[in-house]
């Protein structure tokens, strides 16, 4: 395993120390692995907590700041944060108006956030949980744990953060987040597996001419293998999968093309070019886009495409000012 680390054990702590050094506007509670805004939460504002396993950076700590999250909990690599730590984060951002938990749909994350919410409620903090489950590679059926939460998380966190910043109450913020999730679908392919530091070797091996199709963001193999094809063809297939499941409205989409951690920007722009071309051909307008590393999977080479149907309100929330390490505008 070749990584810029000291020890697999300390990877998350060391990265958080770097984040703390780089971003004085954030506060890092190393004991609990909780990142918050130094400015704190305005009294009466709904608090926003997200979190999950590490290895998806900039998700979630890179989205803490004005107009987005109030706190991020960093679990070990690919392991959900434990309930006690989520509770610490929940308390930290509770400013009297309740707290929204944005949770990617995985068993561990669900259980930990649910337990933390239970404990928070016992302390008198109202908590609403919002589940992100956008990955169409996982068919929702009795045969699975439900769709995974992947690329749409950045969209959900952005609009929920804007809604909270604008004074939305607990239900309004949670509903906005749920609507963004309901309107979002993602699909990802991997060219090369990433390596979990504690495991020390790649999650899977792939021949030079094959890719994994329908991967998640935890290094697991995809739904199937297939030949490496030209980007144009690959993107068309990925969009087929996403559009087949995306709610049909006349609204335009927010399109997010995210590298999975080891994909150069040159390739991401090639992919985005075909996303734009293909969607135009299919009559789907792109209102906003992101191209870069937004929701990653350690050093996996590959790309995810997320589309979110966004009505005027979601677009307005998308455009609202945001000032975090990884998203900044307005």
């Amino acid at each position, binding site marked *: 395993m070749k990584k810029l680390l000291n020890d697999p054990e300390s990877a998350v702590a060391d990265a958080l120390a770097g984040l703390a050094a780089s971003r004085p506007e954030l506060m890092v509670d190393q004991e609990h692995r909780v990142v918050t805004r130094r400015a704190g939460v305005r009294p009466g504002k709904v608090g926003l907590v997200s979190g999950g396993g590490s290895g998806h950076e900039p998700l979630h700590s890179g989205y803490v700041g004005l107009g987005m999250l109030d706190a991020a909990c960093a679990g070990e690599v690919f392991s*959900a944060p434990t309930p006690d730590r989520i509770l610490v984060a929940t308390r930290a951002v509770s400013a009297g108006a309740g707290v929204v938990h944005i949770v990617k749909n995985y068993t561990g994350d669900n259980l930990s956030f649910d337990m933390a919410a239970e404990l928070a409620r016992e302390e008198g903090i109202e908590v609403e949980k919002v589940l992100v489950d956008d990955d169409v590679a996982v068919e929702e059926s009795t045969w699975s744990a439900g769709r995974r939460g992947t690329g749409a998380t950045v969209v959900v966190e952005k609009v929920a953060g804007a809604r909270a910043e604008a004074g939305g109450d607990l239900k309004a913020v949670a509903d906005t987040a749920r609507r963004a999730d309901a309107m979002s679908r993602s699909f990802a392919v991997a060219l090369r597996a990433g390596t979990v530091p*504690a495991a020390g070797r790649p999650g899977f091996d792939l021949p030079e001419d094959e890719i994994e199709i329908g991967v998640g963001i935890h290094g697991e193999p995809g739904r199937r293998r297939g030949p490496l094809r030209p980007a144009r063809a690959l993107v068309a297939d990925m969009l087929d999968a996403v559009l087949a499941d995306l709610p049909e409205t006349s609204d335009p989409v927010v399109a997010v093309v995210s590298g999975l951690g080891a994909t150069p920007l040159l390739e991401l722009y090639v992919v985005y070019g075909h996303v734009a071309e293909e969607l135009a051909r299919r009559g789907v307008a792109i209102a906003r886009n992101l191209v870069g590393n937004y929701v990653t999977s350690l050093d996996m080479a590959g790309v995810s495409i997320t589309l979110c149907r966004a009505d005027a309100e979601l677009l307005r929330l998308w455009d609202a000012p945001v000032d975090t390490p990884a998203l900044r505008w307005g």
Partner: protein
Amino acid sequence: MGRLDTTTALSWIRAAADAITAHEAELTELDTAIGDGDHGANLRRGFSTAALAAERSAAAGQEPGAFLVDVGGALISSVGGASGPLYGTALRAAGKALPGPDADTAALAAALQAGLDALCRLGGAAVGDKTMVDAFAPAVTALQSAATDDLSQAALLAADAAEAGMRATTPLRARKGRASYLGERSIGHQDPGATSTALIFRALADALTSDHA
């Protein structure tokens, strides 16, 4: 003929922690194939924290029930993966169902049944979904139906049953946990959680055998 008191329960958790550490690489391997590769690290971290909690709890003179509640809590607050809340909840529920300073086979079986029930309620898995339940459930059944008063003998049967359940996960298609995302491709791999469950039941048998040798 053999009861589980706090001393033996402490031996159990120590033995489980040792077994997990010794098999960390194997658990990592199994979870890499059909999961996200962290089950070994999750449980090593969890059981080393749990073992510390166990020492403290035993030193504080807790009865086995409260002792298991403490250990379960430590797992919940240290593992992080799906397995942490599941194992932790199971142990906490088992502990709450375990009265008195020591337990015979029937009492322990009933407590572990309560733990299994809590685990299934929480995770929603049933036998055959290719999870830890596939090892946990037959182990509890074996303990319940062991035609012996000798707890260490019964625990050996439970460990064997857990291992058989563990092996039986290989041909299954996963319905719960990360392996379910793989669909058909989960078939042919042994479930990591069922594997750690088998280690934990084997540790129980070991603890009972050596403490009551």
